[in-house]
C-alpha cells in the first residue's frame, strides 16, 4: 500500500525537481544578452565600413572619445525621423557613429546588393542630414545581437573607456536627450576633458 502511494506521488516529485531547474535557468545568463548591461565594456568586433569594405574597424575606435552609437537602417521609418535631430547633435559637437543594420531576410542567399545599400544610404543622408562620423556595417547582424539590439533605432552612449553608459531603445529626440542622456553625457565629457 505504501509502495503504491509512493508511486502515485512520483509524478509530483519529478515535476517539482524539474521546477527547481526551471527557476534556476530563468535567472541564469542567456546566450544572447537581452540588453548589454550598462557599465559593461563593448564586446570586441572587427567590422567593415558600410561604404568601403576595405576599411575595418575594431573596438579601438571607441576609445578615448565619448561616442553615441546609433543602430539604424534605411528601411527603418523611425530612424529617418530621428536623423535630423541626430544631425543637430553632431553640429553641437557630439560624436555619433552609426551601426548599420540591414534587414535582410535570407542571409544564405544574400539580399540586396551592397551597391544598392550604398546608394540608399547616400540618398537618405543627403536628404535628411548626416549625423555620422562613419558607419560600421554589421554584416552578419551578430554584433547587434551581442549588443542586445532588438530592432532599430537604438542608441548607446559609450564613454572614453569603451564602456556602455546607457542603452536607449526607440527614437532619440529632444525630450529623451534632455531627460535621459544629457546629464550622463556631460559627466562623461568632463571625464574626457580631465584626462
Amino acid at each position: 500500500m505504501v509502495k503504491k502511494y509512493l508511486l502515485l506521488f512520483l509524478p509530483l516529485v519529478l515535476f517539482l525537481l524539474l521546477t527547481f531547474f526551471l527557476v534556476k535557468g530563468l535567472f541564469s545568463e542567456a546566450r544572447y544578452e537581452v540588453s548589454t548591461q550598462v557599465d559593461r565594456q563593448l564586446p570586441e568586433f572587427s567590422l567593415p565600413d558600410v561604404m568601403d569594405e576595405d576599411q575595418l574597424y575594431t573596438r579601438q575606435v571607441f576609445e578615448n572619445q565619448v561616442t553615441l552609437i546609433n543602430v539604424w537602417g534605411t528601411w527603418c521609418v523611425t530612424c529617418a525621423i530621428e536623423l535630423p535631430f541626430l544631425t543637430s547633435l553632431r553640429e553641437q559637437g557630439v560624436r555619433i557613429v552609426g551601426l548599420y543594420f540591414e534587414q535582410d531576410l535570407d542571409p544564405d542567399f544574400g539580399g540586396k546588393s551592397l551597391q544598392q545599400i550604398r546608394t540608399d544610404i547616400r540618398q537618405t543622408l543627403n536628404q535628411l542630414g548626416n549625423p555620422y562620423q562613419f558607419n560600421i556595417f554589421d554584416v552578419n547582424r551578430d554584433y547587434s545581437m551581442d549588443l542586445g539590439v532588438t530592432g532599430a533605432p537604438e542608441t548607446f552612449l559609450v564613454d572614453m573607456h569603451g564602456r556602455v553608459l546607457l542603452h536607449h531603445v526607440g527614437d532619440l529626440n529632444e525630450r529623451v536627450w534632455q531627460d535621459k542622456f544629457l546629464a550622463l553625457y556631460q559627466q562623461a565629457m568632463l571625464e574626457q576633458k580631465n584626462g
Partner: protein
Amino acid sequence: MIAELGQLSLILAMMASMCLGFYPIVGAIRGEPRLLIMAKPMAFAMFAFTLLAYMALTHAFVTDDFTIKYVANHSNSLLPVYYKYTAVWGGHEGSFLLWMLMLSGWTCAVAIFSRGVPLIMVARVLGVLGAIALGFYLFLILASNPFESLLPYFPVDGRDLNPLLQDIGMIIHPPMLYMGYVGFSVAFAFAIAALMAGRLDSTWARWARPWALAAWGFLTLGITLGSWWAYYELGWGGWWFWDPVENASFMPWLAGTALIHSLAVTEKRKVFKAWTVLLAISAFSLSLLGTFLVRSGIIVSVHSFASDPERGLFILGLLVLVIGCSLALFAMRSSMLKSNSRYQLVSREMMLIGNNVFLTAATIVVLLGTLLPLVHKELGLGSISVGEPFFNQMFTWLIVPFVVLLAMGPMSRWKRQAIGDLKSQLLWAVLLGLVMTALLLTSFERFSMLAVLGTFLVFVIVLTTIQEILLRTNQQINWRNLRKLSRSHWGMVLGHLGFAVTLLGITLTSNFSEEREVRLNIGDSVELQNYQFTFKQVRHIEGPNYSADGGVVTVIRNGEFVTELLAEKRFYPVQRNVMTEAGIDSNLLRDLFVALGDEFTDGSWGLRVYVKPFVLWIWLGAAIMALGALLSIMDKRYRLVCVSKATQAKNIENRQIAGTGADFG
C-alpha cells in the same frame, strides 16, 4: 478610446473567470443548484469579453494607434495590413491574449456542447477551466498588459516587427498550435473534475474523449502546417529540425496520442483509470510547459528573442500551481481507484498499455533532449547541445516495438487473446509486407537498411489494418458490412493508415533524398537521380508589389521533358525584403525543388537542387490522421450522450437516419 474599452473588457473577462472558478465549484461541494447554474452564463461572458478585448487590440493595430506600447513595439505604419492583423500575436502580450481567447473559446464550447453531461459535472469542469483562466488573466493584466499606454509621450511611428518574426510562417502556425495546446485543457478539466468528485467511473472518459480528440486533431494540423511551411518557404529543403520550439509542440502531441488511446480503454473496459487521468494531466501540463519554454526565453532559440525573468517567474508560478495541485490531487485521490475488470497478459488492454508505454517513453526522450542542455548547464557541467542524431536514433529504436503493438492491437480481443489465433493474419502481413518492401525499394538506386526497416513497418501497419477490417466484417468486404462499422472505428483505421503514410514519407525522404549546391552558367546542367536539370535563363519579372529575378530550369528525365521550374528571388521595395521563392514540382512520388541563389561576377548563378522522394506523404499522412480524429468525434455515441433524455435521444436518432445522406458536416 477603443483601447480603453479593450482594457475594460479584459478586466471584465477576468472577473467572469473569477466567478466561474469559484461559485460553481462551491456549488458542487455544497450541492446548491443556484450556484451551479451560474457556470454556463459566466463561461459565455468570459469568452465574449475576451473576444472584445482581442478585437480592440486588433483595431489598435489596424488604425496604427501608437499610444499603445505593445502596438508601438510590434507594428509600424508601413507594415502591410495583413501583417498588422497578424502582428497582434507577434509579441509576448498579444500572443497571450490569443491564448486566452482560445482558452475562453474552448470553455464556451464546453458550455454549449455538454447538454448530456449532468449539470454538476459541467459546473465542475467549467469551474476548473475558469480557475485556470483566472491565473492567466491575472498574468495578462498585472505582468504583461497588451493595452499599456505610452501617453502622454508616444512615438511618431512604431518600431518594426522583430525582423526575425516578420515572416509569414512564424505568423501562421501559432494560432493552430495554440488551438491544440489549449484544447487539452478541456480533457484536463474533465479529469480534475472527476478527481474532485471522487467518482472516477468510466463516464468521465466518455465525456472527455471527443474533446481530447478535437485538441489532438488541431495540434496535429498545427504541427503539420508548421513543418509544411518550413519546407516550402524557408528553402532549406528540411521539414523537421528538432528545434526546442518544435519539441515543445511535439511533447503534448505524443502525450495526447497516448491519452486518446488510453481514454478508449478506460471508456470501454473501465481499466487504467489512474493512468488515463495522469495522461490527461500530463498532456495539458506539457502544453503549459511548452508555452513557458517558448515564452520565457529560458531556452535559446530563434523563436524566443526577448526574455524577461520576472514574467517567466510569474508563468512558472502559475505552472507550479496548476500542475503541482493537479498532480497532488491525483496522488491523493487516485489511490482509491480500483480496476474492476480482469484481463490476461496477451489482450487488447495490454497492447494498448504497451503502446502507451512507448509513447510515454518518446515523450520523455523529447523532454530530456529539450531540457538536458538546461539542466546540464545549471548543474555547472558546461554547455552541451542535444541534436538531431540523438532524437533520430532514439525514435528509430522506439518505433519498432511500437509498430508491432500497433499492428496486433486492433486485431486482438479485449480480456484475452490467444496469440495462435492471429498467427495466420500476422504471417500474411509479414510475408506480403516483405514482398512489397522489396518491390518498392528496387525502384531506388541505393540500398539502406533503415529504409528496408521503415518500409517494412509501414506495410505491416497497412496490411494488418486491412486484416482487421476483414476480421470485423467476417471476411466479407461489401458496402453493407463496411457501413456497419462505427465512425470511431473508421477514425481509428484512418489514424493508423495516416501514421503509416507519414512514416513512409519520413523513411523514403530521409534515406533517398539528394541535394546539390551548384554554380551554373546559362545552358549548364546538373543531374540528380536521372533527372537532368538545365539552367535555361534568368528573366526579370515584375510582380504586383515586387520585382524578381526568375531562374528558369527545365527538367528532363530519360530524354523526356518533365517540367519547367521557375525559381524566383523576389525583392519587395516597400519592405525592402528579399524572399526566395523556390521552384517546386510536386507529386506523390517525388518533389523536384530548385532555389535560386546569388549571381556571381562571371555571370554564373548559385543554385540549390533537390530531389525528395515521397516527401508529400509526410503531411498527407498527418492530414489523414486529423481526419480520423474528426470522424471519431462524429461517432454516434457521443452525440447520443449529448442529450439527456431518452426521448430527445430518439428524436436525434430519427433525424440522423433521415439525414444520413448529408451527414458529413
